[in-house]
Each structure stands twice: as C-alpha cells, then as structure tokens.
C-alpha cells in the first residue's frame, strides 16, 4: 500500500506537481498496479539472469572523429527563452 507522502516524494523526484485530487487518484491507482505487479513474486527467479537487452550485442563503437554541429540558430531555435546564444532559465538555487 502506497501512502500519500510516498506519492508526494515520488512526484518531487519526477519534478511533477500534483493537486489533491491527483494525489488521491495516483495513490489508489499506483497501489492497484503495484499490487498487480506483486504477482511476479509467485515466480522464483533467484537463478534467473535479468534481460536488459534482447539483442546479444556488445562493443558498439564510433570512431573519434568530429562531425557537423547544429547551426547556432537551430541549436537554440526551439528553446522557450534565450539570450545571446544561451538558453535562458529562471534562477537556479
């Protein structure tokens, strides 16, 4: 069972604000989904290796060569706020 304060902590980690209604809803829904996920505990996986990748690939490299850069106007073109070629953000504490 997830508590409301856990939901608040997770929202902070994920950089989300939740209103009271959302906190209620996510507490209920996440609890339900996580309970459902506990079905996996029925399986003994102590000797099972995890699958992080389905393809057996390893050592994929690129060579150390400089390629084209984005033109300056395209690099910052999508930013909500900019100044003198920099991305601009509110003050950082």
């Amino acid at each position, binding site marked *: 069972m997830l508590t409301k304060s856990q939901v608040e902590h997770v929202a902070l980690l994920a950089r989300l604000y939740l209103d009271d209604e959302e906190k209620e809803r996510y507490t209920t829904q996440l609890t339900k989904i996580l309970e459902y996920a506990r079905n996996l505990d029925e399986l003994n996986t102590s000797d099972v290796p995890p699958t*992080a990748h389905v393809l057996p690939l*390893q*050592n*994929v490299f690129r060579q150390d060569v400089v390629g084209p850069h984005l033109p*300056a106007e395209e*690099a910052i073109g999508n930013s909500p706020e900019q100044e003198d070629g920099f991305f*601009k953000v509110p003050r950082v504490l």
Partner: protein
Amino acid sequence: MRAYESVIGLEVHVELKTNSKIFCHSSTAFGGKQNTHVCPVCLGLPGSLPVLNRQVVEYGIRVALALNCSVARFCKFDRKHYFYPDLPKNYQISQYDLPLSYDGYLDFETDDGCTHQCGIVRVHMEEDAGKLIHREEVGESPAYALVDYNRTGVPLLEIVSEPDIRSAEEARAYLTELKTVVQYTGVSDCKMEEGSLRCDANVSVRPRGSKELGVKTEIKNLNSFRAVHRALDYEIERQIALCKEGRRIVQETRSWDEAKGVTAPMRGKEEAHDYRYFPDPDLVPLVISPSWIESVRRDLPEPPDARRRRYQEQYGLSVYNARVLTGSRETAEYFEECVRLYSRPKTVANWVMGDLTRLLNAEQVEIQDCRVRPAQLAALMRLIDDGTISGKIAKVILEEMFASGKDPETVIREKDLVQITDAGAISGLIEEVLAGHPGPVADYRQGKGKALGFLVGQVMKATKGKANPAMVNDLLKQKLDEGK
C-alpha cells in the same frame, strides 16, 4: 601527537582530450562560442541516441593501468538521474555497479620525504555536464541563469580513492602525483584552472586509534591545489573543534569559499539524493578482452616513479632534480632528448631546470611549445665546451633563441658573439685598460687583490663580454705582475 586524526578520500574528475565527445561527433574543443559545439545527441533532443567513442575506452584503460587497477572484463553504462538545467537529458550517462576498472593504488611522497600509498576504489567513464552562468537580480528584473551545452558530453574519468589519506598535505601530494601519472598517459591536460582536473574531497575526523569512521562532509568547489590544501586544513580543524565541544557533525555537502577561507554548507538540496540508476537501454555492454588490455599496456609510457628512479641511477641525478625533471612527461621527454644529443646529463639538468625553466615561467610557455628545441639546446652546450662562447654569453644567447627560435650559431653570427680567444687582441685591450685606470693598478700592486676583479670587469666590458674570461684573468695578472 594530536588526539584526533582525519580521514580523507578524494573524488577526482579528469577530462579526456579526445577529438569528439563521448557519445556523439561534436567537438570537445575548449572555448567555442556558446552552444556551437552541439548536435541532437549532446543537446538531448527527443529521439537522439548515444554511440560510444572507442577512444574514451582506450584512454580509460590507460589510466586504469597506470593506477594499477584491474580492468573489468565486462562493464556497462547506467543512467544517473537528477534534474539540473546543465544536464540536457536530466540524467547523466555514467557507470554504477560495473565500472571500467577497480582495486588500484597510487604511491606518492610528501614533502617530508615520507612515502605513502593510497588505494583506488575505481576508475569509471561518464559524460560531463554543461555550464551555467548565474545573473544577479537587477532592479525589477529577477535573477536568472544562462546555459551553454558545449561541454556537455565531453568524456570524463572519475577516479575515486579509498579513504587512505590522513592530512591536507597528503591530499595535496596525492593529487599532485595523480595529476602527473594521468598526464603521463597522455589522455588529459589535467589543468585545474581550466577545469580539466576537478577534485571533491570527503573528510571526517576520529579520535586517534579509533577504527570507526566519523561523520563525513563532502567539500566541493576546490579549484586549485592550494585550495585543496587550505580547505581540508580548515575543514579538519572545524570538525575537530566540534568534536571537542561534543557537538554533532552533520553529514552534508560544503563549498569552499576561497576569498573567506572557509567551508560553508551548500544551499539545502530539496530532497535526499535518489539517483535511480539503471542500465542505459540505449547502449550495449562493453567486453574488454585481455588482448586489448595488453595492447594498451604495451603502449603505456614509462611511469613517472620508474623514470625518477632511473634518472638517479642512470644519470646520477639528485632526488630533487629527478623529481623536477619527471614532473611532467613533456619535461622528462625534453630532458631525455637533450641527453641523447649531449651526453652530460647533469649539465643538461642544470640548463633545463635553470635558465630554460626561468624563461618558460616568465613567458608562461609550456615546454612542449618551447621554441628552443632539444637539438638547439644541445648545440648551445657544445659551443660552450669547444670554447666558442662563454657560459655567461650562452645565457644571453639562450634568451635570444627562446624569443626567436633561431639556432645558437645563427644568434652568435648575427650578434657577433664569438668568444675572443686571441691572446694578442686581449693583450692590446689590457694595455688600454691599464693605461686608463692608474689608480686601481697602483692599488693592486700595493697588494689590494680586489682591484684585479675591477680590472677584469673593465676588460670584459670593453669586449662586450666576449673575451674568454679565463684568458683575461691570466693575461691581466701576468701584465700587472710584470710591472711590479
């Protein structure tokens, strides 16, 4: 002996001097206009994907071997999550539970001549973040910050030491040796002032003899070797004072204030760290074969400590001289090239450590960029040996060589600096000087030896320093004694 001892571990970040970034083709060049060394990958644009730069692994293995680490057969990259505007994906690609290498050590010496060994927990690869510029509030307009992502994705090695360091002086010595060792591998400039070497320190204190570790603080913003030394001294004293008063030390991150000479808590983070590491699904595992490791090992240059011992044994240099000449790989290589061309190592050592270093420091030039090449310095030393110039004139010539890059022979010719060794010519000048200075001549003849020095000086002055000083001395004495 003090009642408390300090326990210090250092986390050092070294920027690798690859051409391109760790996961994309953008340039790592320093000092470009803001946000011009970026591409969809290092800007973290939606849909972009990382591909590992092979050179970063190669460089990482070099440093790992130089620090006596075991290189992992199998390693991987993980995502480390934290939100910060200089981190385009809001996670950093790093290595968590399976780093590139682990279990190494570094031997180093403190100024009192004591040797120490510090364990290396791990060396791992990761990407650098961008740069934030903070702008203060002005009148009505609130404070804000500007972000430049040119440094984002520049490859870093993180080198984590064991908490084996016991004083600020040891920390400085460890860091100095670490810098030298890493520089020798040729993978980084290790310039603290440019940020290509960065250091954070973990420090705690405990009653001497205790086996338990005290509560530690992490010190950031250490921008020079001096800062490391001063900040640790300060922090150790602060913690000891708290202990003595029976007050609690808070586990926290503190920032070094260079101007005030104190550490202060960083403004409180909003939550406890929870980096939520997990294997980056966009990258595949790295399997490093023994043959790859061996090929890197074969190409490693002779490490500084081995070189220091060899300079003492093979060249008969003092401990001090050997240490200075191996202080950087470039200096050592310059020195050895000179010795290859001119077979008196001690003479070479004197020139390199003396006049050449003085000129390099005065002009802020690195030895690898020095216009006086080893062959030219060797030629200069030979010209002294064969009597073409005096040692004193050689210093003048070296200055000219340093400024212009010309060969010593050219400088001598252009400035007409060939030593005067013609006894007739020197005798003629001596006659003139004796005639012009009857007072000192009389003094000398009355037994005032000092007057000889004055007269030698006058002769040298008349030849603009070019006369062979030994000959001047002999001939002058001869003449004066004749007239007694």
